[in-house]
């Protein structure tokens, strides 16, 4: 028995493995740290962060009222110290319009992305893992939604629905944009589902639900994050587009609505570039930031794009070759 104990003790934990990893206790922050080191992602996060901060502190840096007021006295003023971004045809302060509009635009885009990503991940991964009839049904639904031209449909829906509130916009945009990501996530889940650790979880007795959410999904974080960022910026663009066409709630302030009013009032033709430029710039910078974040996620997830070999991967691979 003692000999057996001695044999078993003969495999102490490799001293080389232990020390460096005591600081990295969690998996996700480690991946996040890598992302933060990526220059593109850093710029993107910084710009997006600035937008978010501005939106949050909007009441402190601008007058909410002035975003939507009618004020004959202050109409059509070019940017000045009083009105940083100038005023619109109606006399509303463009700066206030941008920072308060940020709240609405960013929040709507964010929530639509959350909805779409949740749907895409759940349906896509479940379809891949369960296979068979479940897969067929979900894939059919996905294909139908995917094939429908989203923008025309959105235009139709928003034209008919009388409620033009945020919730409607979130449901409509999120409810249509999930389909293409669902296919992609299904594809990735298909490659994962035949990995031995999934079989092992099944043999341990895990339920299907826990395998989908507990085994497969955590291994697809980077792809899901990419999906989220992608849908986020598409949602921003789509919403801005719908509002620009007059299908949004033109009473509230948001970037797209600002553009709508600027067009309706022919501001550009009259030389009032500020009422159009600044909201447009806000949209453009946000979308650019998200695109950079997306590029950063891609580079972090695919080591080959990074150019320098991942030291850890090559080392851990070596110790288990046949």
């Amino acid at each position, binding site marked *: 028995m003692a000999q*057996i104990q001695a*044999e*078993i*003790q*003969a*495999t*102490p*934990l*490799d001293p080389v*493995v*232990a020390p460096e*990893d005591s600081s990295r*206790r969690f*998996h996700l922050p480690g991946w996040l740290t890598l992302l933060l080191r990526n220059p593109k992602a850093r710029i993107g996060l910084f710009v997006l962060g600035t937008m978010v901060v501005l939106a949050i502190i909007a009441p402190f840096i601008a007058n909410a009222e002035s975003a939507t007021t009618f004020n004959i006295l202050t109409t059509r003023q070019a940017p000045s110290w009083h009105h940083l971004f100038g005023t619109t045809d109606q006399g509303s302060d463009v700066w206030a319009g941008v920072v308060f509009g940020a709240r609405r635009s960013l929040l709507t885009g964010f929530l639509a992305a959350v909805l779409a990503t949740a749907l895409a991940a759940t349906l896509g991964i479940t379809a891949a893992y369960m296979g068979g009839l479940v897969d067929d049904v979900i894939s059919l639904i996905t294909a139908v939604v995917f094939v429908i031209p989203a923008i025309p449909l959105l235009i139709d829906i928003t034209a008919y629905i009388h409620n033009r509130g945020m919730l409607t916009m979130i449901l409509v945009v999120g409810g249509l944009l999930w389909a293409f990501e669902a296919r992609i996530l299904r594809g990735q889940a298909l490659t994962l589902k035949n*990995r*031995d*650790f999934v*079989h*092992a*979880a*099944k*043999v*341990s*007795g*895990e*339920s299907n639900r826990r395998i989908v959410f507990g*085994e497969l999904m*955590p*291994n697809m*974080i980077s792809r899901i994050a990419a999906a989220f960022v992608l849908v986020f910026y598409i949602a921003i663009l789509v919403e801005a587009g719908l509002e620009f066409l007059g299908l949004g709630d033109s009473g509230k302030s948001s970037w797209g609505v600002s553009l709508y009013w600027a067009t309706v009032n022919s501001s550009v033709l009259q030389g009032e570039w500020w009422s159009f430029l600044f909201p447009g710039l806000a949209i453009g910078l946000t979308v650019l930031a998200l695109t950079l974040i997306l590029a950063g996620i891609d580079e972090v997830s695919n080591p080959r794009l990074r150019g320098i070999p991942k030291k*850890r*991967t090559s080392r*851990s*691979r070596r*110790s*288990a*070759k*046949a």
Partner: protein
Amino acid sequence: MSAGLTEPAELEVQGLTKYFRADSAVRARSFVHAVDDVSFTLRPGTITALVGESGSGKSTVARLLARLYAPTSGRVLFDGDDLTKIRGRRRTLAYRRQVQMTFQDPFGSLNPAKTIRHHLERPLQIHGIVPKSRVDQRVYELLDRVGLVPPGRVATKYPHELSGGQRQRVAIARALAVEPSVVVADEPISMLDVSIRIGILNLMKDLKEQHNLAFLYVTHDLASARYVADDILVMYAGQIVEQGPVDQVLSSPLHPYTQLLMASVPDPSVARHEQIEVTRGHAAAAIDPGEGCRFLSRCPIAIDVCSRVTPQLVEARSRQSARCHVNAPAHVI
């Protein structure tokens, strides 16, 4: 720590068969006979080696036992119950408590996104092996038992922080967590460094003795089979062609395929290796094989009847059976 039965039971496999579709028509006409009428018994406290080359069906047998596939036909009897007839989550879970599996790839069989603790906790939680308050302690005990020390530190690690041998030990610990009676080990060492393999084999031997487990050791490597197993089953083209105590079978093989394997394996102790005949045919499962011996095309001693009648497994010596008309002819009635 036995499975809680008063007396450890045997796992008896009878006529296990698995066909896969070989064409893509709506009604399949052609089938790959991956596993064809395989029967054996796994006894507590023994390691049985299932030896064969790639495609011979040995991995399919393993997966059938682990219920990752459903058999086309056949029975698996454990303690009187036919396990192939199990339906429903509760009974499936009860089966999984008895029969566990480890996989070949130490990288692939652990979830890269989860800690070692998670891998060992889950089976304990799913099957309620110990009360919640004792889960942590049991995790450390399991790690200790497979030689991963200090267990407190290992439990916090992620798979990529361990070496191949360490991961394979985690996989074994995970299989042991539910206190099974049978562990199916599918090529546990073939992807490990050579110097680490013996450690894992020794671990299997020790666990077999300490816990009276039955192991099914699936491998293509005869030398390790001889080292660790008590009995051996040799598979070819989906069938068992020879079985018996490992030393007996390997020192005096009856079936020409076993003889071919022994002649092919590198053996430094042999002064000059005998040349083998290069022949056509391979160990992989056949599509719609007809009657007749599947080894025919490679067999140096085939006779007329071999092409017409499929040989049965016949006990030609004490406890040693082979599927060969020449070396293990069926008894004339």
